[in-house]
């Protein structure tokens, strides 16, 4: 079972780390802060079968020796909150002495990042923590903590009930079992489809989703939330598999699939990802805090025709070291590429680190939307 929150880290290793960590106090934390655009699998589970989640948490607690669990759910899910509230009370006796407490977020996307979530749970500002130390060793209130996504925990009772072999028989490569894929955006048959890993992206979009709702050709598919890569139909052969996606500079994330038809402006989509990151950045690390804002500004300049004349300050004679000549579109694109590299490798967490995926995939596959010559890949 690999964590379904997005990183795909094996849940068993995480649990073993917590189980073997020293100390009498340990926690189970369920990340139900489902903030990615076009995702709703967590909500469906919590509204439809909250006991699966509660049972999964109780099993995890038993496995690692935790006394207490928290479900951190986003405030935008009032029905899920109400359902969980009742379900936790109904299950209290069955899971005792393990106890579960429901905590409601306050609307910050970054609190879906596990260390921010822990800070938020502790009553602190939702700011990302550096790792190490891993939450498995020093998590909530500094104690060993399992942080798992709703889907991960809700799958646990089924794996135990049906046996590990049965679950592992599904899927492909190192991506075993099933994934609830969420189809959204401009798609004919939107909704939640749980299926084994291994279908191609084309099968998911066209066979299950039935193509676009508008009936126009698909231009791009964004997989894995607002910071997932945009993939053109030329990549529909990609199997739904963590490694295959990673090899194509894309990610599966929480398995949200958002479809765009040929009217989409991919520069605007690239800008959106930078604007989203700027809006949701916790502000701790420099590449994300300043980089996302510069990214928006840069893409706006490119949209306005590319290039940049020297600013009034740069033209001052006192500014001896400044390169005061105008910058070309190619230089601006080069700067955007460098910025994406700085953010990808320099950011503290996946928010700033993944913001470059939609930007660079848009730039790579649809250069004409950025005022450049069309890519040669169309001829593949």
């Amino acid at each position: 079972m690999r964590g379904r929150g997005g990183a795909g880290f094996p849940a068993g290793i995480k649990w073993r780390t917590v189980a073997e960590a020293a100390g009498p106090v340990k926690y189970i934390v369920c990340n139900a802060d489902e903030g990615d655009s076009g995702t709703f699998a967590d909500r469906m589970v919590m509204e439809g079968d909250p006991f699966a989640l509660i049972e999964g948490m109780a099993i995890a607690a038993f496995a690692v020796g935790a006394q207490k669990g928290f479900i951190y759910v986003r405030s935008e899910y009032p029905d899920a909150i109400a359902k969980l509230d009742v379900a936790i009370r109904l299950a209290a006796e069955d899971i005792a002495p393990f106890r579960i407490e429901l905590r409601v977020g306050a609307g910050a996307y970054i609190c879906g990042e596990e260390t921010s979530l822990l800070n938020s749970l502790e009553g602190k500002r939702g700011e990302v923590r550096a790792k190490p130390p891993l939450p498995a060793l020093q998590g909530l209130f500094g104690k060993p903590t399992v942080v798992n996504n709703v889907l991960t925990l809700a799958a646990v009772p089924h794996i135990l009930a049906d046996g590990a072999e049965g679950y592992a028989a599904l899927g492909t490569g190192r991506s075993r079992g099933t994934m609830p894929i969420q189809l959204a955006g401009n798609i004919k048959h939107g909704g939640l489809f749980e299926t084994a890993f291994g279908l191609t992206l084309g099968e998911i979009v066209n066979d299950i989703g039935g193509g676009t709702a508008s009936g126009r050709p698909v231009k791009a598919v964004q997989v894995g939330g607002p910071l997932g890569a945009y993939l053109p139909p030329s990549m529909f052969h990609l199997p739904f598999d963590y490694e295959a996606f990673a090899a194509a500079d894309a990610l599966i994330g929480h398995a949200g699939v958002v479809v765009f038809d040929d009217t989409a402006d991919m520069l605007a989509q690239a800008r959106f990802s930078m604007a989203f990151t700027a809006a949701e950045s916790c502000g701790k690390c420099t590449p994300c805090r300043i980089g996302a804002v510069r990214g928006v500004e840069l893409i706006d300049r490119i949209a306005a025709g590319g290039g940049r004349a020297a600013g009034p300050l740069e033209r001052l004679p006192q500014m001896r070291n400044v390169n005061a000549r105008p910058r070309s579109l190619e230089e601006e694109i080069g700067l955007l590429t460098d910025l994406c590299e700085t953010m990808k490798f320099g950011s503290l967490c996946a928010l700033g680190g993944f913001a470059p995926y939609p930007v660079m995939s848009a730039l790579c596959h649809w250069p004409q939307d950025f005022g450049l010559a069309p890519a040669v890949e169309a001829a593949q």
Partner: protein
Amino acid sequence: MAADPEADFGTPARHGAPVRLTIDGRAVTVPEGTSVMRAAALADAAIPKLCATDTLESFGSCRLCLVEIEGARGTPASCTTPVREGMVVATQTERLKKLRRGVMELYISDHPLDCLTCSANNDCELQDQAAAVGLRDVRYGYDGANHLDAPADVSNPYFDFDPAKCIVCSRCVRACDEVQGTFALTIDGRGFASKVSAGMPEDDFLNSECVSCGACVAACPTATLNEKAVAEIGTPQRAVVTTCAYCGVGCSFRAEMRGEEVVRMVPAKDGKANRGHSCVKGRFAYGYAHHGDRITTPMIRASTADPWRPVSWEEAFAYAASELQRIQATYGRQAVGGISSSRCTNEETFLVQKLVRAGFGNNNIDTCARVCHSPTGYGLKATFGTSAGTQDFDSVADADVILVIGANPTDGHPVFASRMKSRLRQGAKLIVIDPRRIDLVRTPHVEAAHHLPLQPGTNVALLTAMAHVIVTEGLADEAFVAARCDMDEYREWAAFVAEPRHSPEVLEAVTRVPAANVRAAARLYATGGNAAIYYGLGVTEHSQGSSTVMAIANLAMATGNIGRPGVGVNPLRGQNNVQGACDMGSFPHELSGYRHIAGAEGRRLFEGDWGVSLDPEPGLRIPNMLDAAVDGVFKGIYIQGEDILQSDPNTKHVLAGLKAMECVIVHDLFLNETANYAHVFFPGSTFLEKDGTFTNAERRIQRVRKVMSPLAGLADWEVTVGLANALGLQWSYGHPSEIMDEIARLTPTFAGVSYALLETEGSLQWPVTEAAPAGTPVMHADHFVRGKGKFVITDYVPTDEKTGPRYPLLLTTGRILSQYNVGAQTRRTRNTVWHEADVLEIHPFDAENRGLASGDWARLASRAGETSLRVLVTDRVAPGVVYTTFHHPETQANVVTTEHSDWATNCPEYKVTAVEVSPSNGPSDWQARYQAAADRARRIEPAEPAE
């Protein structure tokens, strides 16, 4: 390894097993837990950094310190990555260069560019790192979103906050949290809008919870938080390490100078008392050194009704000497005496007592410790054998239970309080015994397990009740007692405290602390692991002060909490050198090193060295001197660095004593209250103007180093030498180090101390002997200094100062963070912005009964006298208890305090005075008359034309 004590290795030192790794091709071995960043810095391969500094835990926000590690994905931050055996690290690759330059390019796209006119020019880590990464072009331009028009907050009197220069590294926030423990700062907003905020967005620094300790200013890598003085003067050109002259913590500072001007005082990172931290007083409140009130010329007058007449040093010495000789000729050898100062150096204090013993020919020498920690000296000597605390400050980091009694560390000893709070945040348990709800009882991330708000004056009853619980519940460490203490005395003591009349239930009527809480606190102290007691003047300044000290020592011995790190009995000394002043033989009955004057062996040693014969009879204590003066048999006094009229109890009695004398010599920085009744004034020198040593509360001897010339031409020790020579003593000290050599020669516990050793060791904790050449951090490790620890029976005897219908409330007194004692220094700094007058804290119940509201003037009257001050209605004090500070002469809180004192040492009972509080229209008649008289007494004749 870099030798620079101020070098910054990025993350704190660790102490694990050795780990070997390779950094840039070089083999490095560091302790386990060390960060890659620190390992690299130790190997002279410093990695660029901005958010990391080795006084704070790593944070990982700036992303300049990325490295490549073989076998690891991506580019981890070196500050948050611990070393592993066999790790291979590259700190400089093309990829890393590009990444770092990319990060720096982002920083500079939102930063002012006028570095040359910036107050941190050439003292700015952003500037340094921009240079280090080779940034040459900011391709984003300078027209993007920015914070450059953010307004500066200049509300703090000592430092400015300019958010336009902020790089949001959170070093200030983390310093406030981790180092100071106040949690006043935070990051407000998120993303690009993230900004440092002192509390709520509408708060400025001055109105926030900021205590102005300066930790944030020290931590700031840019000019965002910078000293106003640096902006005004410029960056320093040299630094001299010296010791703070305020409280007994003894913080080590770098006096950063430009010429003879102090640019700023920066806490020394390798200071063993303060470990790089400071408080608002030591860090910023040195402006008194140049205050216009400083007197820089000696002055004399025949009568206190005359104005002062400025004279030369020679004339002043000659006049003072002739007066003292005349008085002794007329009234006898015992008619004069001296008072040494806990504010002055060991060397100066030693000289004053030497002047009295060898020059005046009597033992009428006393010191201001009389009115603060004399019971500590008595009590700890009686029980343990040494008149000093048992631990070093580092010891608190090993404590599991901390018992604070009669001390308010966050106000009185703020730097030690921060170290204590750091340990409490790690989980140590806290017991507070104090009539007031001091800040420690509940402060961010710290909450006392037990606060026992006892009635003032009932310390002994409460401690006996705790001992009762420990003995009767079988919680005593009898194995320790059997091995280390006199068992017969223990049994006698145990039987005494076990008597039913000493149970918490019976004594609840006296202490007014619920018995269950006393029992719980006693159990925690006895069974919670390493338990350490820290106490202050709330213990000593009582009629049973010495008994309380011994009751504390009993508790520590009975539970085995003596002789190792993490435990002990620790007096928090009020003044910078109160320990040293006591060590140096400032008491009338003791020579330096606490040897009784009646002891022939010790006395002979001094007689041989000094070439005089000494009076074997103990001399007069301060209160006895004043009594004798009123009686007409004590006529002359030399007072160095103490304002007895303001600081000693029962002001009217002190006044009568001073008025009855014929020659009062005051040696001070300012014309203090005592000087109003003086005939000779010797202008003093500040700690910045002289060489010497101070000894702090942990027995740590530290150098005071001269950074500027004495304003009056002579350092204090030179003045005492001048007076001594005018009396015919022929002293020829060329430097204070020669005085220390004499101290070492004559004082066994100082035998190994020399300026040369202090230079190499930084500081020394006495005893420094052949057996302990590098000093003694923890005392009584294997055996007590006196041999067997002595249990002393401490029977609770209520004070004679009792409430009644006329004086129904109990007044207790204390200090506040921003002011220091009688305020002679702090009132002459911008610290007054926090505390411009003493106020009376009164419980809402008592206030309402008297028709008083916060801000009203009230009359505060006792059997001794009355004064007026404004009230603050607060439930910090219990009903029936009122509290004030004694920092301001306008209030003269000691007009109210009485002459009751400790049975053993005469330490005044400042902490218990029966009073009544009633509405008032303003200052009392006495205050008005006093002020008029003081103004008259301070007149100075116009200076004569220069010859």
